[in-house]
């Protein structure tokens, strides 16, 4: 269905973050700008050399926030595009930056994202929607429905889900950018208050604020820009999909994770690799069940078996396929516009061998998967 015509090789040459958490004194632009400055510094490329920028964010903070943010760095006149694709807004900005370069239009691009998510349960419909009478527009309730069903079909115990949070918190305790750094036991997670049975509070990602940025460059332009090739990480695949009926309509299986599969298959095809070649994985773990089902949809583990792999430690930093090595949404927090690029940040940092105490041993291939309302899915594959 989708035709891929990637042209030039594209590399991530700089990544940056603004810490994730709550920052009432800082504006959305402040968070975004700090991440961009961090990424530019990491790349060694000056802002004046960037020919195009894509900005992911969801909640309204005035028009053209991408432009007003980057105006602080100097008015260079380049095209700046504001992207809204729900929780995948940041990864969609990254996807656009990739295709802008590989297609030959631009030599470099900046992808950045930021968000200040309001507290409380996240809804996706407008205030006056009939959905408010129905009671089904509730992200975590959607995940809880999946979890009930998954437990029924696989026999997974509640403790297996809690282990996802335990692992996320352990990873985040070694990550200075994380929203939540304190660690928990399985019992702590299961005993936290119920949000939507069987999901407890510590199995749901915090709503957060933060920023993330990445500088991308064509392989044939690296030398001209004086970029250190030893720290450049190649983008082997960039896939973005929306809902695909595929035997199950949008009213089936609320928020089905299996919509990830088409994007994953596209990405593996583009990269010329299979799931067995993947060393590290970042997935959209807005809730514990999300991580289990996404790694299954990526074919890292067979359907219904990710919970067992988690219990066995296979997805821990020391396991054979570490998942959400920086703490994921569960511990990093989830500023929608930033999350997808934060996953790229972590993948690049791991592939460079610069992840410090949470460094995985010698990873060469990393996958980053991000989901969003509207059945948006992005899958990016990065290689060293």
């Amino acid at each position, binding site marked *: 269905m989708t035709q891929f015509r990637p042209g030039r090789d594209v590399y991530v040459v700089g990544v940056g973050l603004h810490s994730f958490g709550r920052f009432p004194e800082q504006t959305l632009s402040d968070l975004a700008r700090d991440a961009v400055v961090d990424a530019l510094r990491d790349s060694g490329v000056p802002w004046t050399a960037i020919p195009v920028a894509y900005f992911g964010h969801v909640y309204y903070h005035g028009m053209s926030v991408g432009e007003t943010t980057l105006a602080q760095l100097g008015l260079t006149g380049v095209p700046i595009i504001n992207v809204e694709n729900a929780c995948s807004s940041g990864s969609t900005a990254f996807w656009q930056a990739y295709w802008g370069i590989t297609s030959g239009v631009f030599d470099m691009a900046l992808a950045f994202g930021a968000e200040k998510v309001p507290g*409380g*349960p996240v*809804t996706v419909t407008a*205030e006056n929607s*009939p959905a*408010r*009478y*129905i*009671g*089904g*527009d*509730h992200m*975590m*309730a959607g995940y*809880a*429905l*999946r*979890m*009930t*069903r998954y437990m*029924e079909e696989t026999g997974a115990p509640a403790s297996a889900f809690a282990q996802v949070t335990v692992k996320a918190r352990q990873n985040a305790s070694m990550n200075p950018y994380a929203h939540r750094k304190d660690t928990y036991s399985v019992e702590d997670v299961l005993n936290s*208050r*119920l*949000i*939507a*049975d*069987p*999901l407890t509070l510590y199995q749901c990602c915090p709503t957060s604020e933060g920023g993330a940025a990445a500088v991308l460059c064509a392989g044939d332009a690296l030398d001209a820009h004086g970029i250190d090739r030893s720290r450049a990480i190649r983008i082997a695949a960039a896939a973005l999909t929306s809902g695909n*009926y595929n*035997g199950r*309509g*949008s*009213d*089936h*299986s*609320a928020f089905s994770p299996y919509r990830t599969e088409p994007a994953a298959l596209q990405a593996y095809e583009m990269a010329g690799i299979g799931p067995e070649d993947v060393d590290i994985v970042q997935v959209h773990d807005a809730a514990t069940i999300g991580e289990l089902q996404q790694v299954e949809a990526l074919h890292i583990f067979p359907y219904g078996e990710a919970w067992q792999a988690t219990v066995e430690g296979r997805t821990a930093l020391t396991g054979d396929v570490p998942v959400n090595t920086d703490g994921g949404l569960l511990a990093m927090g989830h500023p929608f516009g930033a999350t997808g690029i934060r996953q790229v940040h972590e993948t690049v940092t791991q592939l460079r061998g610069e992840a410090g105490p949470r460094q995985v041993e010698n990873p060469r291939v990393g996958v980053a998967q991000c989901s969003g309302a509207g059945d948006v899915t992005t899958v990016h594959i990065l290689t060293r």
Partner: protein
Amino acid sequence: MTPSCGRRSELHEPLSVDERCLRLNADDGSAGTLLGMRCVECGVTVFGPATFCQSCSSPRLEQIDLATEGTLYSYTIVRVPPSGWPGPVPYVLGEVELPEGPHVLAEVIDCAHDALRVGMPMTLALRPVAMPEVPDSERVVYKWRPA
């Protein structure tokens, strides 16, 4: 239904929460039918409105009455409600699979929490719901209860 609701419905026709999803069949709003759109070309049926088929994109759709009974595909007990939720807390949210294929999310009523089971038969129930302190906001809402 409270007495005040009864008086109101004598003055005003009860309104469906969404006429594209629920057609009311009784003057007092106590009976109704869930509506779906079925593709004449491939037979795929969806709950609620559609202009083109979700599966084959055909414009040849026909509106059909959906079954009033289905099975509970999954459920959750919502302890922290979404903003604007006008009902009791906690409430049970159920995903019911209808024989025509669609899954319909709605509140499950008249069921003890420990009696909930995946696969249990469910039947349609209609209830009037008003948004607190919002004038003229009463609507008839579809819900599920054990069959």
